[in-house]
């Protein structure tokens, strides 16, 4: 994170609304920090919850990785130090062995020079024999200790001392005791031996110091590692906790949604049942009074035929006509309601055949009018035969109705297959058409674009068409212009395999 105070000019304090009483102004850095924090939270709030969760997990994960790397490094340092300690310990031991051997060899050598007794040369010979081995050990331990210079110097001095001693032995054996007497008392190569002692002491103290330093460092690193591991554990706990929280949250949410869905489903089912009962009651009870109105009006006009004047007869006719209209409205509404609720059959419908039968049924209503029908080749579509029959019944009834005023009515039915999974079927007429600005009202329930004295109708037919086509997974739309005919389209999904 960047510093909060670095690049913000402190000369531009934000506009603060005047306060009722003077308060101690917050220090600049604090204010800037607050601003920063606000901007950061604002920036964060643009993120989606998933992004925030991901960012949080990423941060914690990076932290854990960093801690793991640092702990590994610390442990490596401790391991290396302990290895160095071992070699340092070995070096110190080796040095004391060498020193011991040197002292023994020197004192034996001195006795030999005095007495000529060769048995005193045993330590010296042993040292001569051991020396290459000592050298090899020293060589191995020189590098880790970092005291190669001192060790080389020590070896050189030992070699020199041994050389001098060898020379003295040679002198003693060839020239007798007197020749080496002056050497025997103070000891040969005394200076070199002292130097070696001093060097060994230096080496030992250096090793001790290094060991102490390493111990201190190891202890520090270990403390560090423990702290890091503790932090890592905390982070992992945080991670686990958040995972638990998220999963818990998710599960709770899911449960809630499932319960809500179930409840809604039950409500819907109850509402559907109610609707069914309602429409049953409408179908049964609402029709009876209408029948009576029409029936008694008819009976009245029959039994009082002589006494009624024309006006009274017209009134009775209007009563009958209204009753009939309401009956038709109820029937249409019930069909509309049924089309929404009824279980759909899934079979293949031969539209050619279906359109033919619908036109045949319509012929009775045409009352001798001649209409020029153009029927293209229509596909087989999957769907409910009764429902699709209703669709074409409504569309063709409309086409017949709205071309009634034409001298030469023309109705065309055809199909186009524009995409692989869909067919579009159209019904085109040269009737009175409609204004495209009302196109959205066409398929609504009780929406009519014509007065009842122009064209009869209940305003449910096209709503039914749309409802049925929607239930088949298709779409409906229309094009038209006033006095220039109308075209109604419906698209239906078809299986890919059908050709």
């Amino acid at each position, binding site marked *: 994170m960047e510093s909060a105070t670095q690049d913000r000019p402190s000369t531009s304090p934000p506009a603060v609304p005047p306060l009722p009483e003077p308060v101690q102004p917050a220090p600049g850095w604090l204010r800037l920090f607050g601003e920063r924090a606000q901007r950061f939270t604002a920036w964060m709030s643009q993120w989606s919850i998933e992004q925030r969760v991901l960012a949080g997990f990423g941060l914690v994960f990076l932290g854990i990785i960093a801690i793991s790397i640092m702990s590994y490094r610390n442990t490596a340092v401790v391991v290396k130090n302990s290895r160095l300690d071992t070699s340092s310990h070995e070096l110190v031991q080796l040095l004391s062995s060498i020193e011991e051997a040197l002292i023994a060899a020197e004192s034996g050598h001195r006795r030999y020079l005095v007495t000529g007794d060769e048995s005193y040369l045993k330590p010296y010979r042993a040292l001569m024999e051991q020396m290459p081995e000592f050298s090899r050990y020293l060589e191995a331990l020189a590098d880790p200790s970092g005291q190669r210079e001192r060790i080389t110097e020590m070896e050189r001095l030992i070699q020199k001392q041994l050389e001098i001693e060898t020379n003295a032995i040679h002198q003693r054996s060839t020239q007798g005791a007197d020749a080496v007497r002056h050497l025997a008392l103070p000891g040969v190569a005394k200076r070199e031996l002292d130097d070696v002692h001093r060097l060994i002491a230096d080496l030992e103290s250096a090793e001790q110091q290094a060991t102490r330093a390493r111990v201190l460092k190891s202890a520090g690193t270990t403390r560090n590692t423990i702290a890091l591991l503790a932090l890592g554990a905390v982070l992992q706990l945080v991670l686990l906790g958040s995972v638990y929280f998220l999963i818990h949250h998710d599960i709770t949410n899911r449960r809630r949604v499932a319960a809500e869905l179930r409840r809604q489903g039950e409500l819907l089912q109850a509402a559907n049942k109610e609707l069914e009962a309602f429409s*049953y009651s409408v*179908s*049964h*009870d609402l*029709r*009876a009074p*209408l*029948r*009576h109105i*029409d*029936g*008694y*009006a*008819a*009976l009245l006009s029959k039994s009082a035929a002589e006494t009624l004047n024309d006006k009274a007869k017209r009134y009775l006719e209007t009563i*009958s006509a209204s*009753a*009939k209209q*309401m*009956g*038709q409205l109820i*029937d249409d509404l*019930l069909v509309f309601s*049924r089309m929404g609720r*009824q279980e759909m059959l899934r079979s293949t419908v031969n539209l050619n055949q279906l359109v033919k039968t619908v036109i045949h049924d319509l012929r009775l209503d045409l009352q001798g009018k001649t209409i020029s029908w153009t029927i293209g080749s229509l596909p087989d579509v999957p769907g409910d035969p009764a429902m699709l029959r209703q669709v074409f019944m409504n569309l063709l009834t409309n086409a017949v109705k709205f071309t009634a005023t034409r001298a030469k009515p023309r109705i065309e039915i055809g199909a186009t297959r524009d995409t692989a999974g869909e067919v579009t079927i159209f019904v085109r007429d040269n009737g009175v058409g409609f204004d495209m600005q009302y196109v959205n009202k066409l398929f609504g329930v009780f929406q009519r674009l014509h007065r009842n004295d122009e064209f009869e109708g209940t305003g449910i037919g096209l709503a039914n068409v749309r409802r049925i086509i929607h239930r088949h997974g298709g779409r409906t739309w229309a094009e038209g212009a006033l006095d220039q005919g109308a075209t109604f389209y419906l698209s239906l999904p078809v299986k890919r395999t059908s050709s």
Partner: protein
Amino acid sequence: MTTVKPILLAEDNPRDAELALAAMEEHHIADKVVVCHDGAEVLDYLYCRGAFKSRQCGNPVVVFLDLKMPKVDGIEVLRTIKSDANLKPIPVVMLTSSREERDLAQSYALGANAYVVKPVEFQQFISAVKELGIFWGVINEPPPEGN
């Protein structure tokens, strides 16, 4: 054909009954019609009990049955008729306002001989009742009496 067998009309609504009778009157078959106002009365008539204890027993030539009736509804009456060996041969015509598929299916499943939806328009209603009356009361040969 020689013995005048009655037409049984089960109709709870007196106006509907009156209109039906008016329709039959035009064709002079109204005097053959017996009107019952609920399902229980229909069963009483058929089994010659209660108010019909003293009537001369014998099955009607046809029963016109409304679906929605007080006490015992049309479906229940139909079920009783069609599960009784003596009454089973009587032709039963459902004459109802309901166009519900459920009612249609149930009626035919129980053995109804016809199902007619009462038209709202009086002229149509008259012609429907008239045709029904003539067909079932005059044209159709009823099942033999006895067994």
